């Protein structure tokens, strides 16, 4: 056995983990590793900002389910990762971040570019490690990958002092079982308690008004097939969270689409009136439940989740089932088939009621042939991509319109920052997704405010010829904040106007990308088609949309579903709908 540099050991272990791409930007403390990457058998993407690198690794991971890898130097390099790590942590994205640290003998001396990265990232990672001995290095990196991708996935950071990357050592790559044994307290495999599954089946048989409330856990656990089988069997209508989009085809007649703050009228009505709510891989986030005391007030709740800490955290549930969603659903289906009832008959009146709600208030908007409506842009993107593209979004109104007006049909199709709500996520995530899935069309639908937060990385997309399409829903506002100001602050538009902005077309061109623009509804389709014909560079499309369009329906923060704002109404006076309690 020959001794190798720490830096080369890192590359060897990454290679053994099957890594094909790393994203990052070098600096003093991680130079040795970058030197080793020079000969690495995998791809190394140089980004223009570490935050973008983290979001790229995240987009790569969300698009595939594989672990995304990001690298940064110590101090500012590592602190620039913070938002990206927190974003991935909130949405349970498997990621490994490798950061350089100052040499061991400098740690704690306020050395140049020293930051307590372990302390800073502790609450926003699933776990983190400071490597203190080169002998531990291969094991720690393997542990990081194992922890990141198993159980409820999440980002794991490994902080490696520079002197360890330079030091030479003999080493072997630990086997899977050695990795598992080295983490005696970590038991990520859970199959679900049989008695609880039986109880759940009993409740499902008895329910008159059941609803499936589906979250990102179904996608992470690769359980879409099982979910569909359950729905086909029991005819239970399905509403998904923002994170759950794609877990169930939205064109299916039993799809209720999204629930919650910007949920559809019919999804929220169904949940409000349900007598059984089956939460699958979802966590009762406040953006979903609104006022928790009035959330599904008459429903018994079954909650299936791999993370015991998600259960009975925000709401007390009747039947908790801790386990991998895929395995639990398989067992639940088996249990239900043992003792079938006449499902169609049992559902008849409930599904009819839901049909009526769908007719009463479908998801819609006021169309125009004079001004581009943002919702129209999303519908057109759906058309030109035939519903088959991977879509990412920033955060704000455009994110919600993207969630509402594109119909998702497969898992890992819609990538956005649901938990942390990170502006600047969409564009770099699209780059990561396209690198991971080059055969797919990838669209980043961005707000003008969100896009500019990571706009520097157009250079990365051009450098590596990543042919993604960026569509800027340009309202020259921090639109979502403006909407809240209109509704709840008497239209006092404090610090939301973005009327000073670059000419996005020229900006794109100056980077070597293609820039396009539409200012009238009839130009939208043409511009999108033109973009679709370009395959060697990123295309950036500036869509000048109706500036004061609002996202509706809306349940104001902390309110009950009873108080849904449905109609645009007069400016500043959107109409609240009160359901009869």
């Amino acid at each position, binding site marked *: 056995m020959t001794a190798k540099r720490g830096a080369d050991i890192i590359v060897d272990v990454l290679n053994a983990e099957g890594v094909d791409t790393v994203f990052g930007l070098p600096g003093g403390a991680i130079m040795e590793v970058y030197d080793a990457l020079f000969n690495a058998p995998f791809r190394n993407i140089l980004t223009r900002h570490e935050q973008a690198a983290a979001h790229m690794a995240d987009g790569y991971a969300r698009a595939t389910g594989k672990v995304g890898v990001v690298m940064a130097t110590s101090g500012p390099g590592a602190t620039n990762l913070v938002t990206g790590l927190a974003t991935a942590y909130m949405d349970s994205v498997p990621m490994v971040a490798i950061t350089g640290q100052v040499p061991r003998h400098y740690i704690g001396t306020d050395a140049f570019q020293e930051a307590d990265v*372990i*302390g800073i990232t*502790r*609450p926003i990672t*699933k*776990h983190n490690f*400071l490597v*203190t001995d080169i002998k531990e290095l291969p094991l720690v990196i393997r542990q990081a990958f194992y*922890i990141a991708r198993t159980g409820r996935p999440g980002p794991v950071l490994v902080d490696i002092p520079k002197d360890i990357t330079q030091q030479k050592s003999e080493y072997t790559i630990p086997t899977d079982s050695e990795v598992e044994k080295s*983490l*005696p*307290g*970590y038991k990520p495999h859970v199959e679900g308690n049989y008695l609880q599954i039986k109880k759940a089946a009993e409740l499902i048989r008895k329910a008159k008004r059941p609803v499936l409330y589906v979250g990102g856990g179904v996608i992470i656990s690769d359980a879409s097939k099982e979910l569909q089988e359950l729905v086909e069997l029991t005819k239970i209508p399905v509403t998904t969270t923002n994170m759950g989009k794609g877990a169930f085809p939205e064109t299916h007649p039993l799809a209720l689409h999204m629930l919650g703050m910007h949920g559809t009228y019919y999804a929220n009505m169904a949940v409000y009136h349900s007598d059984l709510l089956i939460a699958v891989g979802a966590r009762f986030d406040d953006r979903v439940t609104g006022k*928790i*005391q*009035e*959330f*599904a*007030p*008459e429903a018994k709740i079954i909650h299936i989740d791999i*993370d*015991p*800490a998600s*259960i*009975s*955290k925000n*709401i*007390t549930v009747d039947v908790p089932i801790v386990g991998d969603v895929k395995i639990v659903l398989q067992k639940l289906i088996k249990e239900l088939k043992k003792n079938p009832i006449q499902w169609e008959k049992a559902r008849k009146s409930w599904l009819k009621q839901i049909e009526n709600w769908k007719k009463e208030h479908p998801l819609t908007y006021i169309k125009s042939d004079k001004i581009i409506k943002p919702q129209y842009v999303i519908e057109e993107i759906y058309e030109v991509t035939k519903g088959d593209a991977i879509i990412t979004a920033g955060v704000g109104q455009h994110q919600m319109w993207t969630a509402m007006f594109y119909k998702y049909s497969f898992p890992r199709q819609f990538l956005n920052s649901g938990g942390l709500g990170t502006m600047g996520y969409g564009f770099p995530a699209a780059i990561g997704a396209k690198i991971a899935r080059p055969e797919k069309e990838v669209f980043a639908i961005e707000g003008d405010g969100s896009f500019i937060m990571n706009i520097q990385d157009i250079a990365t997309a051009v450098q590596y010829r990543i042919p993604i399409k960026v569509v800027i829903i340009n309202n020259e506002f921090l639109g979502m904040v403006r909407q809240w100001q209109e509704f709840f602050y008497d239209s006092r538009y404090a610090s939301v106007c973005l009327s000073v902005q670059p000419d996005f077309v020229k900006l794109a061109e100056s980077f070597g990308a293609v820039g396009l623009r539409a200012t009238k509804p009839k130009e939208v389709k043409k511009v999108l088609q033109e973009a679709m014909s370009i395959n060697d560079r990123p295309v950036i499309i500036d869509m000048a949309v109706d500036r004061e369009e609002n996202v509706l329906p809306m349940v104001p923060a902390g309110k*009950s579903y*009873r108080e849904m704002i449905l*109609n645009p109404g007069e400016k500043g006076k959107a*109409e*609240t*709908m*009160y*359901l*009869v*309690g």
Partner: protein
Amino acid sequence: MEQEIKTVKIRPEPPKKIGRHVIVVRVQHNFGVLARITNLFASRGYNIESLTVGVTHEPNIARITIVVKGDERIIEQIIKQLRKLIETLRVRDITCIPHIERELVLIKVHTGDEKARDEIMRLVNIFRAKIVDVSTDTYTIEVTGDIDKIEAFIDLLRPFGIKDLARTGTLAISRESAKHKYAKYVE
């Protein structure tokens, strides 16, 4: 458009019972593991009454005793969050099973006149405490016991003038003698 709200339906929630809980955690004795645990309490806003740590007879395992007040949902969350940490080996709430609680306290108390000295000596004897250091006007007393005994002892010494006081926080361990009878309540 606005319709009258007849009745507002509310989800029934179980009543909140606040209690004092003793939670015992075994963890891998790694760098930073204590910071991870205290961070968890700080960032989620849980209130700790005391937290003690020490390595066990196995050098790579540390044992932490946490005393915390909260309603059942909070206690349940704390236990789940503790279990979620990668380095956690075992978490038990031993509040409801027979267990021994001990705390050690060192108290510097002002002695004053002879009468006061006698009185303090009497208390020390009753509480089976020990005087571990003496100066012209101070006794330093060592006492161990459960929380009720400790608090009672401190209260009795207060009138003499406590100059300084150091507490270890509660240590707890389940009673092996009652193990079989209560086995089903553990985990």
